[in-house]
C-alpha cells in the first residue's frame, strides 16, 4: 500500500532541493528510497514543503539524517518512526490513519456515497409528489366557468 501510494507521488513530478551532490547516497537504490521517504516528511521551518523540496538548514539536516538511517540498515518504516518519535505526527505529510483522522481519509468515499444517497432520496421524493398543477379553488373555478362561457359566445 505504501509502495503504491509512493508511486502516486511520481505523478506530481519528482522534487529535489538544490542539494549538494556530496549529500547523496552512493547507492542509487538507497538514494531513491531516501528521496521517497523525504517527500513524505515535512520541513518544519517551512510552510507546507517536504524536506526534499526545501533549502532550509534544518531540511538539509533531516535529509542527511534520513540517509544515515538508511545506510545504518533501517527500513522505511523505521526511518519514519525515528523522526516521528522526535517531532510527532506533524512531521508526516501523509496524516496517520487513526480514530481522529479516519473521517479525513474516508472522506472521498463518504462524500461520494452521501452525494449519491442525497440524489436518490431527492429522486424518490420527486417521483412521489404529484407533478400536476394544484387544483383550483371554488372562486377560480367559477371564474374559469365564466371565461369559458364568454369564449363560447
Amino acid at each position, binding site marked *: 500500500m505504501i509502495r503504491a501510494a509512493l508511486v502516486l507521488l511520481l505523478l506530481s513530478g519528482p522534487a529535489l532541493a538544490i542539494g549538494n551532490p556530496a549529500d547523496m547516497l552512493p547507492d542509487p537504490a538507497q538514494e531513491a528510497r531516501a528521496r521517497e521517504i523525504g517527500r513524505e516528511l515535512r520541513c*518544519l*521551518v517551512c*510552510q507546507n514543503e517536504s524536506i526534499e523540496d526545501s533549502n532550509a*538548514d*534544518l531540511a538539509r*539536516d*533531516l535529509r542527511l*539524517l534520513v540517509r544515515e538511517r538508511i545506510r545504518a540498515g533501517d527500513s522505511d518504516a523505521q526511518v519514519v518512526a525515528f523522526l516521528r*518519535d*522526535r*517531532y*510527532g505526527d*506533524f*512531521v508526516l505529510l501523509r496524516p496517520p490513519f487513526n480514530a481522529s483522522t479516519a473521517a479525513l481519509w474516508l472522506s472521498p468515499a463518504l462524500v461520494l456515497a452521501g452525494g449519491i444517497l442525497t440524489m436518490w432520496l431527492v429522486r424518490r*421524493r420527486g417521483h412521489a409528489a404529484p407533478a400536476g398543477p394544484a387544483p383550483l379553488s371554488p372562486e377560480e373555478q367559477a371564474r374559469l366557468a365564466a371565461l369559458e362561457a364568454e369564449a363560447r359566445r
Partner: protein
Amino acid sequence: MTPALRRRLLLLAPFGIVAAGGAAFYGMLQGLQTGEFNPRGVPSVLIGRPAPAFDLPEVPGAEVPLFRHADIAPPGRPVIVNFWASWCVPCVVEHPQLMALSREGVPVFGIAYKDRPEDSRGFLRRHGNPFARLARDEPGRAAIDWGVYGVPETYLLDAQGIIRWRFAGAVTPEILAREIRPLLRRYAS
C-alpha cells in the same frame, strides 16, 4: 418529523455549517491574538518523557562546566535546558530572563546550536553567562533528538529529569512569570 420539516432542516444545513465554521474561525482569530492558537508552532512530543541522551563537547574557554546527560538523569531539582546561538536575534531578547533565573539559583543548562565556539564565547561575554553548564552541538544532531526545530527553545525538566514543558521562541518576562515560575514551584517537591 414531517417530510416538510425534514426538508426545512436539510435546506438550513448549509447555513448551519457556515455559522459553525464562522464561530470556529472567530475563535481561531481570538486565539491568534492571545497566542494560544499558533498554526506555525510544532508541539513537543517529548513532554512526559525523560530527556534524550546526548554526548556533546564543551565550548572551549567558556569557563563553565560541561553539560553532560548525567547532569539531568536525574537532576534532583527542576532545571531549565536552553538551546541558543550567537546568531539568533530572539536569543538576545530572552537573555535577561535567563540571567534572572540563574541569579535566583535556578540551574540553567545551555546547548549552543550550530554556533562556532568563538562566537558563543563572544555572545556570553557581551550579554552575560546564565549557564551553570554548557555544551555545544555544532552539527545540530542532538537538537534533533530533542525535537528542536529552531532557536531559541527552552525546556523545563522536573527533579526526575522528565521533560514537563517546552517553549519555542524567546522567553519573555510574561512567559517567565506566567509559566516558568509556577512550573518550577510545582515540580520543586
